[in-house]
């Protein structure tokens, strides 16, 4: 019995020791991702500050930051961000609704899949920017054609994600629904939708990424406001700091909206028993 005591002590020590690194990890892990861009930015800042480069074509972070502040002070920034966000929001909304509905129909109903899917896949093969001239002719140069272009970009990944996810829902789980005599709508609501949700969230995030891509294309074509306009304006007036400012804001907004989807979906995906959970990714 006496010999037990040291053994117990020994085992408790590593346990205490293990707590410290895990606490460190919790804060260190997100910081790890910032390390690389921060080092590069500071390095460039240093180079320009020492006068080893004039930083005219590649302005240092401080100058980009100053440009953002200037734009924010004049109220321009809010106007441009609002315009871009509004376009992405509307285009994303239309694209998601259309992609989800059509994807669900094609996934659930094999006749619809045979009828619709080949056409959709053929349309998907067209580089989406090829639609631009047509959309401008059809819908005009203003908002409608821009939103349509974004919606097209968002539509395909969502459609494909929903349809593909429904097709690979485990037959065994569907059978459980059948044994409890679920009706078609109940089967969709109680079995298929929850089963495809993880894949759906991924397709939404991919769709959103494409939405941000296409808003730039749309705004480069002809716009008087929006972050894409800031890019074009910066190029035409030779203001690289403004271009970089717009790029930085794109990065922030893109990351932020993606994170919003992730956060919104998280409560519905807590049940997952997946690789990503274990690694904390």
């Amino acid at each position, binding site marked *: 019995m006496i010999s037990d005591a040291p053994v117990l002590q020994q085992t408790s020590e590593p346990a205490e020791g293990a707590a410290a690194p895990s606490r460190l990890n919790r804060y260190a892990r997100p910081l790890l991702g910032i390390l690389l861009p921060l080092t590069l930015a500071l390095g460039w800042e240093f180079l320009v500050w020492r006068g080893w480069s004039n930083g005219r074509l590649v302005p240092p972070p401080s100058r980009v930051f100053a440009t953002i502040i200037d734009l924010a002070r004049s109220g321009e920034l809010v106007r441009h961000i609002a315009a871009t966000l509004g376009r992405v929001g509307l285009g994303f909304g239309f694209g998601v609704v259309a992609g989800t509905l059509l994807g669900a129909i094609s996934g659930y109903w094999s006749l619809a899949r045979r009828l619709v899917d080949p056409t959709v896949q053929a349309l998907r093969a067209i580089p989406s920017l090829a639609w631009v001239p047509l959309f401008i002719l059809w819908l005009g140069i203003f908002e409608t054609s821009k939103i349509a272009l974004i919606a097209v970009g968002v539509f395909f990944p969502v459609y494909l994600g929903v349809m593909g996810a429904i097709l690979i829902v485990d037959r*065994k*789980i569907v*059978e*459980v629904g059948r*044994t*409890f*005599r679920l009706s078609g709508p109940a089967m969709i609501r109680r*079995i298929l939708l*929850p089963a495809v949700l993880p894949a759906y969230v991924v397709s939404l995030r991919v769709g959103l990424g494409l939405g941000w891509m296409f808003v730039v294309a749309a705004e480069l074509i002809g716009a008087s406001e929006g972050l894409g306009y800031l890019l074009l304006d910066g190029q035409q007036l030779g203001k690289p700091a403004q271009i970089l400012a717009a790029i930085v804001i794109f990065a922030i907004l893109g990351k932020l909206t993606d994170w919003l989807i992730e956060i919104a979906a998280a409560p519905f995906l807590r*049940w997952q028993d997946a690789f990503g959970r274990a690694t904390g990714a």
Partner: protein
Amino acid sequence: MLALDRVSKTYPNGVQALARFSAEIRQGEIVAIIGGSGCGKSTLLRAIAGLDRASSGTVTLDNEAIAAPHAKIGIIFQEPRLLPWLSVADNIGFGLADGPATERREKVARALERVGLAEKAQAWPRELSGGQAQRVAIARALVPQPEVLLLDEPFSALDAFTRRDLQDHLLDLWADTRPTLVLVTHDVDEAVVLADRVLVMRPRPGRLFDQIEINLGRPRDRNSPLFENFKRSVLTSLDRSLDRGVPDRDATQGPGQAMWW
């Protein structure tokens, strides 16, 4: 009464899985269906469940033809098949679509208590062990109080100890409402522990080969000589069904029913 009348099943690829299988199963009876692999026992169970249609022949429950899943027939599969996005309690309540919410909650709570998983009510299925998950599946199938419960090798994926526990537990639960149990298994022990009657099937095409009444009171002692005798007669019949030699001569002298020939 569950009546199977010349049930046959031929798959689209031409394989005949089941040929003119007939049997009558009394309300409250426990029947085990046993047979070599490919003898069509799972096909038969799926036909009774209404999951797959028989090519010919009929399945009737109290004179009502079964062609689709039926409210009075529940099924437990080899895997628990819990819905991973529902808590344990919600999984158990999955088949209780109608009825007031309070009544549903009460039924679920009682079932959880009954299978000894009350403290796991809010757990996710991924947090359960294999045996616990299968107990949840049993509770889910029993909560709507089916008249017939079908079991497709329900314990074959579990370790020996858990399997015994669950066999006893199943009998215990069965005693509550005494539904008809039709159990497909390849485990002779399991068949003799649980069943009133063992149906032995012969493969290619699957058909009924033999029936053995297990005239043993419950609870059954797995180590008693009588139990051993029944086991041996089932094994003998099984060997015959596969055209193998009889391994043990005195098996035929067991107290089981005489061979049909």
